[in-house]
């Protein structure tokens, strides 16, 4: 997954986590508060009910005892009534005490419940704050890493691209200018070549050669395959490659010596009679591609037979793999992954 996506995903997950945790804390507090309220109500009802029953029992006791006392003779009646009054008073006092104890217990237990609710809600909130902080710190670290990583990748995709290449006993420098046009989703590749005339090659020969080589290279290498984004989130889903060959007198990417007649051209030595297809093959090296034909001096080479321009410039064409250098440059430049397809 692309770096930017990872950081973006982490940021999103952090927000989701925070929202979810806050919601759970809120639900917990609501539920706990309800339980405390229920507890308080139930306890109060229980106390009241108990007190009422107790009062009723005391009243009944008093009534019954008073009735019994009325049957007694006067002197004992008074004693009986006194006793009844005392026991009823004790009964009511007991009822009041138990009611008070019950109320106190209700208040204490409800308070404990509410304090517990407060404390746990506080802990929950703190947990949300701490975890969100950790999560956001992680996102910050990821963002910083992404910034660093993408900046580092960008170093490998300078506008004036140059890279040493080697294969078996061959070695060269691949160089070109690459610019992205995000408005038109186009990757513009400029190949500046300085032609040096060998002995026996006139300015007219060079001009005639340029008229053949430039369109041949541009036609062979431009717009063959789109570079599609396979990972990341960048402005353009796909880029079109546009190759522009410029023959210059200075500030060149490559110097090519043009020899008279025909001969064995290589990347930096062409002949007046070099055909456009051969120039397009040599341009392939300038873009960083290796040869794909059999070479007895290069036994480790991958020899292809799928119609590649790097195997046979006459019958071959630019294939998907030949855009690898462009795709790699684009990926490094944008920090998204692009592949030719």
């Amino acid at each position, binding site marked *: 997954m692309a770096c930017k996506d990872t950081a973006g995903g982490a940021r999103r997950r952090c927000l989701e986590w925070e929202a979810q945790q806050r919601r759970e804390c809120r639900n917990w507090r609501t539920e706990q508060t309800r339980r405390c309220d229920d507890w308080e109500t139930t306890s109060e009802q229980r106390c009241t009910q108990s007190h009422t029953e107790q009062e009723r029992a005391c009243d009944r006791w008093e009534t019954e005892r008073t009735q019994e006392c009325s049957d007694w003779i006067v002197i004992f009646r008074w004693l009986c009534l006194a006793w009844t009054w005392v026991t009823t008073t004790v009964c009511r006092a007991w009822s009041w005490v138990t009611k008070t104890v019950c109320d106190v217990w209700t208040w204490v237990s409800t308070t404990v419940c509410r304090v517990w609710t407060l404390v746990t809600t506080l802990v929950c909130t703190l947990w949300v704050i701490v975890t969100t902080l950790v999560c956001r710190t992680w996102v910050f670290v990821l963002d910083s890493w992404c910034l660093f990583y993408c900046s580092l990748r960008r170093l490998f995709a300078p506008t004036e691209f140059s890279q040493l290449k080697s294969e078996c006993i061959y070695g060269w420098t691949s160089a070109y200018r690459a610019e992205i046009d995000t408005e038109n989703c186009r990757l513009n590749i400029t190949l500046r070549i300085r032609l040096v005339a060998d002995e026996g090659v006139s300015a007219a020969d060079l001009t005639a050669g340029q008229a053949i080589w430039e369109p041949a290279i541009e036609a062979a290498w431009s717009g063959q395959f789109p570079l599609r984004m396979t990972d990341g989130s960048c402005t353009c889903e796909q880029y079109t490659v546009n190759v522009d060959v410029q023959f210059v007198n200075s500030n060149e990417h490559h110097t090519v010596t043009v020899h008279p007649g025909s001969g064995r051209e*290589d990347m930096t030595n062409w002949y007046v009679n070099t055909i456009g297809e051969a120039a397009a093959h040599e341009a392939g090296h300038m873009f960083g591609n290796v040869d794909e034909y059999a070479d007895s001096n290069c036994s480790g080479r991958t020899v292809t037979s799928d119609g590649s321009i790097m195997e046979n410039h006459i019958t071959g064409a630019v294939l998907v793999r030949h855009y690898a250098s462009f795709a790699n440059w684009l990926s490094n430049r944008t920090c998204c992954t692009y592949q030719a397809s």
Partner: protein
Amino acid sequence: MANQRPSFDKAHPEHYQITIAIGDMLSRHGLTRMTLAGDGNVTAEWLGQLKDTAETVKQMPSHFTGTLKRHDPVDLLLKASQLDWGRQFPSRPGIPDEAIVVWQFGEKGSPGAELRVWLREAEQDPLMGPLLKGLRQELAELSDNHLYL
């Protein structure tokens, strides 16, 4: 093959020969081999796989024989004998598609000395360059520009 400097007896050039082979049979330009004998006889052949049409194969002869027209064989053989035969290959990485030149020099029938060098190095070498240029001119004439080194 011995790589020490080979001897050359100017009095008997007919006993010596130089062979130059450029390229690779498997490469797109194939292998061009040219042999110059001290008596001025030249043979040249092209070996390779034509990547072009079958018609071109028919039209293109690949073997030529003749004699030197523009150069003195003794002069060319003398130049060949003065090459740096102890030179090590490769002296540098090759340019993509760059051909390798293989020089062979010695008495006829003997293995002689062999020297391998990158084509562009051969062209720029003060001793090899003029020799190569001379042989190219002769081959162009001999093959009517069909073959090139």
